[in-house]
């Protein structure tokens, strides 16, 4: 199977062509404001570099930080209505109560509390009030809002009210986008509601972005299937991704860490991904990113997604280097993607970390004569400062005192010289495009979510059955059987049903079958 992995970052769009487990070619292109041009450029360049015909490509996998960045930078977000069903309960903490004010303002901060919702045991808190919802629909229409997030109390136990409310809004407001919280999150009202609202505010953007990806692929002549990677490192098809853009959150770090493991062949390590503006550091255990155990914030909003535990610092290839009173300060400000015009080596006026690396003679880039004035002492102190910043965050991510290797990837990897904090540094081939490799090797998952009567079959047998079913689901989705691992097991007792009924959720993931 020939596949292309693409990583659309804030600065660069990277692409790789892989044949089975071999990376044939990798390229970097600039991300463009319209997204599509950058993807087309990257696709064309990587096809040319790999000497492949577009028709030979079986599948394209895209990882994108576009949606995360939109929330973090508060741009391109649609005015959104958050409708919560649960009155009289939950009124103490209305929708978006724990959001940063600027993000709330960016999406209009429109929240409604309505009747509905269920108790933990499925009983109704209060019946759905159609007239009330139609009144809200009127108000939503008057405000010119066209995307709604609906969250009902205990919808992961029974999602009926969310569905009914969704139908009422769809009928009253034709063409409106509707996100149901039970499709995205689990128990924990505020976190699930937050995820649903973020998803809703990205629906306009996701339509444009997915369409841009589709056009870019068509324009290059590729006829293969097209997937996006989600936060757990598995794939979702384009139509699904358009409805659930929020599931792409944190897929960037996941892809870069999985790519680093794949390229280096090392499964236990610290991964440092150095970009233009920031470095992300996380740890890899058996080839998988370590997951954060506590509620993860995205753009200042608490969610309950499963995400890799990644620590970021403001250090990258474009970071400003400033000397003040004998001390050298590196970052967190950066020239970012403007490095190609603003860095000294490219004829600009700003001293960046890349300029210092070129001046040291360790790497050839741009015009070396433009940095000839930097003294050896200055170069050495800057280098020492960079290494101490990296050492600091590597130490934070260490799982144990064992001397794990550090895998350094990303375009800014040229900053690293020698071991970090005494730990061996590995810079694998194609290190600059590890993100895209991670997307290309993204896995396929199979999930079951079933209710078992434990009084009849017992818990062990129920779990075994669920694991078998998840494995089969992963195989039929295209996973290689021998690579399948059970990554998540959760059983939730449903106290209100007889026979010790328990809802069992199991997720199995495996490598895409490379035939």
């Amino acid at each position: 199977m020939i596949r292309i992995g693409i990583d659309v970052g804030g600065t660069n769009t990277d692409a790789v062509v892989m044949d089975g487990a071999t990376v044939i070619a990798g390229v970097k292109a600039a991300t463009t404001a319209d997204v599509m041009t950058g993807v087309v450029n990257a696709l064309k360049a990587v096809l040319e570099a790999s000497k492949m015909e577009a028709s030979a490509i079986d599948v394209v996998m895209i990882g994108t930080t576009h949606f995360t960045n939109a929330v973090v930078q508060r741009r391109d977000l649609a005015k959104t209505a958050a409708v919560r069903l649960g009155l009289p309960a939950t009124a103490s903490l209305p929708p978006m109560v724990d959001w940063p004010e600027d993000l709330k303002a960016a999406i209009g901060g429109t929240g409604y509390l309505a009747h509905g919702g269920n108790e933990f045991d499925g009983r109704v808190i209060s019946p759905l009030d159609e007239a009330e919802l139609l009144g809200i629909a009127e108000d939503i229409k008057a405000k010119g809002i066209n995307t709604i997030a609906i969250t009902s109390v205990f919808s992961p136990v029974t999602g009926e009210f969310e569905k009914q409310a969704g139908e009422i809004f769809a009928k009253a407001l034709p063409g409106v986008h509707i996100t149901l919280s039970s499709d995205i999150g689990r128990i924990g009202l505020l976190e699930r509601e937050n995820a649903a609202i973020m998803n809703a505010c990205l629906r306009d953007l996701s339509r444009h972005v997915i369409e841009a990806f589709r056009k870019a692929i068509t324009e290059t002549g590729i006829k293969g299937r097209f997937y996006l990677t989600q936060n757990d490192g598995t794939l979702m098809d384009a139509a699904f991704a358009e409805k659930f853009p929020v599931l792409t959150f944190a897929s960037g770090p996941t892809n870069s860490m999985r790519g680093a493991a794949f390229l280096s062949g090392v499964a236990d390590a610290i991964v440092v991904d150095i970009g233009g503006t920031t470095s992300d550091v996380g740890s890899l255990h058996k080839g998988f990113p370590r997951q954060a155990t506590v509620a993860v914030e995205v753009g200042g909003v608490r969610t309950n997604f499963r995400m890799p535990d990644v620590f970021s610092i403001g250090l990258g290839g474009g970071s400003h280097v400033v000397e003040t009173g004998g001390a050298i300060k590196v970052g967190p400000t950066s020239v970012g993607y403007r490095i190609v015009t603003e860095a000294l080596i490219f004829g600009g006026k700003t001293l960046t970390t890349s300029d210092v690396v070129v001046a040291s003679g360790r790497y050839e880039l741009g015009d070396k004569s433009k940095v000839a004035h930097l003294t050896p002492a200055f170069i050495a102190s800057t280098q020492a400062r960079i290494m101490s910043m990296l050492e600091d965050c590597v130490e934070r991510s260490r799982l144990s005192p064992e001397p794990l290797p550090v895998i350094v990837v990303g375009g800014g990897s040229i900053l690293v010289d020698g071991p970090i904090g005494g730990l061996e540094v590995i810079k694998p081939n194609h290190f600059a495009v590890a993100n895209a490799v991670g997307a290309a090797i993204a896995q396929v998952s199979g999930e079951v979510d079933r209710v078992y009567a434990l009084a009849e079959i017992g818990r062990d047998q129920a779990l075994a059955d669920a694991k078998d079913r998840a494995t089969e689901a992963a195989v039929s989705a295209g996973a290689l059987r021998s690579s399948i691992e059970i990554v998540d097991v959760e059983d939730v007792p449903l106290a209100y049903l007889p026979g010790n009924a328990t809802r069992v959720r199991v997720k199995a993931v495996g490598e895409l079958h490379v035939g």
Partner: protein
Amino acid sequence: MKFLRTIHAEDMEDIATGGAILGTGGGGDPYVGKLMAQQAIKQYGPVNLVDIDELPDDALVVPVCMMGAPTVMTEKLPQGEELINAFRALEQLLGRKIDAVLCGEAGGVNSTTPFVVAAMAGLPLVDGDGMGRAYPELQMVTFTMHGVSATPMVLCDDKGNSLVLETVSNAWTERLARAATVEMGGSALLAFYSMSGAVAKKAIVRGTLTLCSELGRTLREAKAGHVDPVNAIVDKLDADVIFHGRIKDIERRTVGGFARGTARFEGVEEWKGHSFRLDFQNEFLMAERDGEIIVTTPDLITVLDAESGLPVTADALRYGLRLKALAMPSNPQWLTPAGIDLVGPRYFGYDTDYREYFGR
């Protein structure tokens, strides 16, 4: 009256973190209570924390609590007026003005709920509680050992229902209130255990809200100072790390409104090759290492994320998490025969006596 300190909205962060540590896996996630306290403080003004010795012996002190299953509290948020309604209704029943608010349970969500009432009622909050940790049943407070009756008690739900209980014992209060709470949808808010300042001076576990605040600060400062957060907490609490491992199985069942279950761990690093088992009934109550029971209630067992040191609740235990388990000594009041009867392992149906981990 001299106040220990004034608690503003931003101070609730540390208190909630510390409350989760003393929550010993249960008591509910303090996040929701923290947000409610912050809303109340922003609207009604800050809360003054007071030492119990500052109150006159004839003062009337009333604790407040949220009761129910932790999962329900993170999903079905309160309507907002329940606590103050219960508090006011009890005040009316008692026929006199309440002078100070008390915390019933310094672990979990109830480390934050008294701040809501103290802010709304404009009353001082006593620095202390009735447990020094979290426990699942409402008779499990040091107040019970001092002969304080839980009733008259007022129980309020999100729908506006309220219930007054008069019972023959605190154990009966628990039974009846629990049944009512399940009917109310798994969570209710209550005002109970009214007592005089004189009794409170003997009956409470002192200083626990300040301890919550200090634990939160310790974790925050450890993070800022790049110090191992678990070690910082261990030092602060006079605790021991009893295991370091990864969860390989969790079994849960809901019995009579409680989240019961067992988590099994396999050891990593210094505990590689060892096994560990935690039994919980809302809170972590018993720890077994390599098949041997090593810590039991009333001593505190708490579980922290091995990296960040942040407390992990029994509800949040997930397959694959890497955690450190800590044991810490309970308040001495619980180690008396009466205390062991109330909260010892046999009460919870475990066939074992209390094990002295801390060699007192």
